């Protein structure tokens, strides 16, 4: 059988991904630089907050969730723009992302619940 990666480029649809000309390239690069600035800014904000706000401060729980949200924002930009997942077919997107929404969210939930329980049990002995 012929190898499809040798015989044809796989993503010609709607001119989104695949070969493009100089003009489209310019646009794409502009987008890439925009995302770069955004990711850097988010990292700077995170480090600033992490260094300034102590973990026993009253505002800390809010900052903690802000960190999680910013991380998901960064991850989203990396996956959608840098890895071009936003330009792929919807079903490929679902195949890649749905496992996390099902399994990992559940795993996080169950691990944290279990950790609280184990902490309680251990505190009876120590």
């Amino acid at each position: 059988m012929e190898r499809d990666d040798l015989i044809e480029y796989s993503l010609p649809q709607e001119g989104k991904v695949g070969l493009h000309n100089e003009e489209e390239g310019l646009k794409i690069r502009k987008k890439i630089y925009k995302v770069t600035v955004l990711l850097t800014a988010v990292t700077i904000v995170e480090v600033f907050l992490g260094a300034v706000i102590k973990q026993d401060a009253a505002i800390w729980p809010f900052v903690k969730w802000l960190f999680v949200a910013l991380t998901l924002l960064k991850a989203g930009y990396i996956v959608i723009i840098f890895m071009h997942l936003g330009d792929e077919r919807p079903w490929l997107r679902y195949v890649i992302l749905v496992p996390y929404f099902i399994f990992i969210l559940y795993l996080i939930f169950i691990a944290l619940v279990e950790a609280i329980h184990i902490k309680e049990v251990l505190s009876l002995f120590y």
Partner: protein
Amino acid sequence: MGSHSIQLDRKTLWGGKISPFQVSYGKMMMWFFLVSDALTFSGLLVAYGFTRHDCLESWPIGEETFNSLPFLGHGFPLLYVALMTFILIVSSVTMVLAVEAGHRMDKRGVIKWMIATIIGGFFFVGSQAWEWYHFIHGSEFGKVELADGSVAIVKGHFGEIENFTVIEGGRHHKKGEVIKEDLMHSFQHAAADGHIKNGIITLEDGSKATISKAKDHELTLILKKSGKQFKSDKNHRVITGKKAEELYYSAIYAGEENRVIYGANLKQNEYGPQQYAQFFFFITGFHGFHVFSGVVINIMICLGVVSGTYHKRGHYEMVEKTGLYWHFVDLVWVFVFTFFYLI
């Protein structure tokens, strides 16, 4: 009838040529590999979260543990990891620019940006090596167990050890000799083994010496475990000033073994619970291994670009596939950065 079905087979049915996802086989398999690899990292980070949730108070805090910069000493919370994160983000950007150049069939552009990516990757691996070195060697003060059984980490500026003056000769050193080499190393070894008592250090060759040491500045104890007297709760966990100095030196000069721990290994570490260092080594090590293999793959693909293999093929999809892997490495670091260093 027969000829009709043959026509159907060739023209309208999927014969393995065009993927239903409209991606090539190689790219789809790279995605599937990344999905499984991401599940591995998710498992590791969830395990980390589990353990951390389990021993909440004694767990080290990122900004207290990672606050050093090369050549500049400490007092720079999180700046070094921030720099590492920035390097990795930039190398991710150069990689996506290489992919973009590939879409324009711009061979020189691809080579330029791929080399930039490889350099960024080496910088990151090198930074991680420094961080491991620093983590393993630990701080100048170490973690100390105070007289009441409470455990504290120590911050501040360690006054330099000027020399040891031998007062009782051993196998190596003679009485009256002034030792000026390897001071810090000998001091930490002796302190950890309980060989310093009342300001007199017993060196490895059996000789005894007095320590001449400059004064420490801003010595601060941060309690990680409560003892009989000192509690590691919100309002009392930080001890500063003269009291901190007295407590610290009475502990390490007590002449008892394991009162102070310097650095980290798989059995003990100065930062927090034993699992902390194990998770640090495993998660950052596993990620660092991914970065390293990513750099190697990038070099191989870059050589392919230089030799013109992909240009002849008519597309630079191989660059795109390594690009996917490289962005994934960056993606994992974004999560490690948050959950290991920030939170």
